[in-house]
């Protein structure tokens, strides 16, 4: 009986306490909202350089509306009505027209023109501050991806509030990856202000982490500890950890350069591979090759203009279109000019150079001499993060893969198809091929069309990397010839190896030499190489070489 009674009393008491708690939070919330409202009133009149403390105060009220308000401010959508300084969330609907909602109540307001409202201005620094504050609030978000980003941001710009919440959240974090990163954040803190033992423990957690913030913290700690004593255990642990991080950093640096080199190489490969056919296989010096790429890039532009809603698929559509456009132009050039100049390389060179100028001027007349804007689809932007110091940009990654795909499909066409057989036959012995009833003039036209079409495809890829303008082709034509000559005329594999070698060499030289000198050195090296081996890396052998 007594037990029952005491249970009842206990229950009643706990209910009472809970109710009290509830009342208290409600009171706090109300108070927070009034302070928030009064702070917000100051926003329109605050100068940019006084903004930071005000925003800090706003965040400190921890009223429930704060995250939404800060997000609005960060996105640059926080305005106030010029008439009564009421703060509004404004979204542009059309030119100079804005839809408004009240900032606090979210109640819709009548739309206005831009002259009735004024923006609450922010700058880089304030948006960064807001980002940090928001990420503090996102530390316990439901979505693990958001939590991870929040912890990452905290590591980059540590602050007391964030670290306090990480200390509380760390043990209950379900995702091991996030928990690990949280302990890194805490360890970095311990490294700043902890006992010797704590610091040692922190170092063991931090060893092998690649985040730049970790390395900075370790270096700083080492600077501080060497001031105290030289040979303490901590100093040794610190310098050991730093060495290890630096070793890995060097390794990834090399990987970085290799990736950059391969990506430059794949651009060279794409631009040279069409030439490898027209110049390498057919022996035609085509100075208008660069303009075929330019046409491909402009085709991409036209496709994007024609289907403005399909930007995401525009590149996929542009690839066949560019192939057809450049290929057709190539066939017209071959039929109209080049076939009459067979066996006269100097005249072919001059004629095709003239054609390149005509094509450039044509594009200038049609599209204006200004560069055209080709948009990048969403999937081509951003980067694939392998680890905090090594990431691969998607556009380059796709272009490497794309270049290899084009290369191997071309190889297949030449090796396995009947067209390829004919092309090889004509290029090896024209008279014999004709005697075997191969229509050599037809094969010439198709081959030239194929080479030009591939240049067009290269143009689609280049439109993602460089400016699309009338001079686009000129920038690549010299490099293309270099690659083909270096690789060995008439050898596709040689072109692949040459492109990748030149690209990688260039990118490994660039950091120490600068881009201009790196180019020069590569060029001089190439000239010396050609002196030694005039037929390139992989010269054709046997009777076909003649």
């Amino acid at each position, binding site marked *: 009986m007594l037990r029952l009674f005491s249970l009842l009393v206990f229950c009643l008491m706990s209910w009472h306490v809970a109710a009290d708690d509830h009342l208290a939070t409600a009171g706090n919330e109300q108070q927070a909202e009034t302070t928030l409202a009064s702070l917000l009133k100051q926003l329109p009149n605050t100068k*940019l*350089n006084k903004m930071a403390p005000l925003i800090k105060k706003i965040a400190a009220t921890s009223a429930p509306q704060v995250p939404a308000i800060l997000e609005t401010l960060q996105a*640059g959508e926080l305005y106030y009505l010029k008439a009564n300084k009421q703060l509004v969330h404004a979204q542009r609907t059309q030119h100079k027209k804005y839809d408004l909602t009240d900032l606090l109540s979210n109640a819709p307001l009548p739309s206005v023109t831009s002259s009735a409202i004024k*923006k609450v*201005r922010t*700058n*880089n*620094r304030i*948006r*960064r501050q807001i*980002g940090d504050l928001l990420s503090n609030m996102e530390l316990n978000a439901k979505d693990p991806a958001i939590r991870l980003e929040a912890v990452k941001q905290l590591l980059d710009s540590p602050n007391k509030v964030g670290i306090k919440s990480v200390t509380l959240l760390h043990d209950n974090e379900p995702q091991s990856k996030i928990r690990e990163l949280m302990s890194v954040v805490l360890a970095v803190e311990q490294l700043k202000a902890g006992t010797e033992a704590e610091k040692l423990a922190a170092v063991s957690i931090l060893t092998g982490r690649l985040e*730049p*913030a970790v390395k*900075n913290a370790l270096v*700083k700690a080492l600077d501080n500890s060497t001031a105290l004593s030289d040979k303490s255990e901590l100093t040794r642990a610190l310098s050991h950890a730093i060495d290890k991080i630096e070793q890995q950093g060097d390794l990834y640096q090399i990987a*970085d*350069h290799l990736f*950059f080199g391969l*990506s*430059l190489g794949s*651009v060279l490969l794409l631009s040279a591979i069409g030439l490898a056919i027209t110049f390498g296989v057919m022996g035609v010096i085509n100075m208008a090759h660069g303009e075929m790429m330019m046409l491909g890039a402009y085709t991409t532009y036209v496709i994007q203009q024609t289907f403005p809603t399909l930007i995401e698929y525009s590149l996929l559509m542009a690839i066949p279109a560019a192939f057809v456009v450049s290929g057709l132009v190539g066939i017209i050039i071959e039929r109209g000019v080049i076939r009459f100049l067979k066996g006269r390389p100097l005249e072919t060179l001059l004629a095709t150079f003239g054609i390149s100028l005509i094509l450039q001027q044509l594009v200038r007349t049609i599209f204006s*001499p*200004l*560069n055209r*804007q080709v*948009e*990048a689809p969403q999937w081509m*932007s*951003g*980067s694939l*993060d392998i680890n905090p*110091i090594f*990431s691969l*940009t*998607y*556009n*380059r990654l796709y272009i490497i893969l794309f270049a290899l795909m084009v290369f191997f499909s071309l190889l297949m066409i030449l090796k396995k198809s009947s067209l390829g057989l004919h092309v090889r036959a004509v290029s090896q012995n024209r008279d014999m091929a004709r005697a075997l009833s191969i229509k050599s003039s037809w094969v010439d036209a198709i081959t030239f069309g194929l080479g030009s079409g591939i240049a067009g495809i290269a143009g689609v890829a280049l439109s993602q*990397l*460089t*400016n699309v*303008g009338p*001079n686009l082709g000129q*920038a690549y034509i010299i490099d293309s010839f270099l690659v083909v000559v270096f690789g060995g005329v008439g050898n596709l594999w040689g072109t692949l190896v040459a492109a990748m070698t030149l690209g990688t060499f260039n*990118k490994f030289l*660039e*950091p120490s030499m*600068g*881009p*201009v000198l790196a180019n020069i050195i590569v060029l001089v090296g190439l000239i010396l190489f050609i002196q030694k081996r005039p037929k390139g890396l992989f010269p054709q052998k046997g009777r076909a070489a003649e």
Partner: protein
Amino acid sequence: MKFKKLIVASSIVASTMISNFAFAAENIKVGVLHSLSGTMAISETTLKDTVLMMIADQNAKGGLLGKKIEAVVVDPASNWPLFAEKGRELLAKDKVDVIFGSWTSVSRKSVLPVLEELDGLMFYPVQYEGEESSRNIFYTGAAPNQQAIPAVDYLMNDIGAKRWVLLGTDYVYPRTTNKILEAYLLSKGVKPEDIMVNYTPFGHSDWQNIVADVKKFGSTGKKTAVVSTINGDANIPFYKELGNQGVSAEDIPVIAFSVGEEELSGFDTTPLVGHMAAWNYFQSIDTEENEEFIANWKKYIGDDKRVTNDPMEATYIGFKMWVKAVEKAGTTDVDAVEQAMIGIAIPNLTGGIAVMNSNHHLSKPVFIGEIQADGQFEVVWSTPDTVIGDAWSNYLPSSKDLISDWTAPVSCGNFNIKTAKCSGK
């Protein structure tokens, strides 16, 4: 004897009067020396149109000194030596009273000796590296202390930058500007290892390495900022690469001195949003004068999408000042106009007053703007007052003792205050 003198004097007066009468029927000629073809045509054609608009405007108001103004447009075709030839043609053959022209520093340096030899007068409307002051040129664009130095101050004080990357295209303007900035940063206590300098050729498009280096340079925990004097279309792939490698304006802000509304027009500016530019004028600045100027420009050019930019304002100020100086002097004679120019004040388009100083440079306000998604700039900082253009930088050892003053006692473009001598001619 006295009588004879009187006759001579009166005959001189009479002859000048006659010659004045003879000229009265003729128009006042304004030469326009901007490239209309070649690489610089993109930027310079706009300025040619601005001058033509101003002339049409002035003629509609009744001309100048009772005469019509006539434009003589030539095309130096982005070919630097041709600037000298075309300048000579304007002065010697067409006998123009004034020239508005040039964009790149190398073209200005090319035409300068011709102007001095034939005693011509030119207005140069573009921001430049300083270290020059000619009697025959009025510099209405910004000197380094009106663009580069305030921009660095902003990054240092408001953004809190501690580490600096100076990126530039490889030619005279970026090299000189970066030299001044480096000296300035060192004088502010920045350590040499916290400054990284890099030059790239015109039209550079493969920014992978450089952006990766910047990223690495900026990962040491100290706030890093990039000061960019990258010129022309190399900018677009640069900002794209920054975006792709995940460097945001909040992490490593870039401030540019050669990126304006014209360069951004028609481009997708999403990867650039939040990065900055420093100029003396932005189209977005909300004043009545500016609104009128923009409306006039759009009407004149017949295209509602055309934008205005800083060198256009400099051209506008230069032209207005020249008109006022000619009215004040009562003649278009170069020597008289040159002296009348000094001290002339006219309202600029951003709500202040532009004054021509005795060193042939203007007093201008400096604005920092952040790039918006629509290709316009939002001003985030401005100098409280106008800044007087300084021809000779105080931060370079070779020029810190030099001043320029084209008024009576000194009358020298490079006067050394230590030795009290005019170093040039």
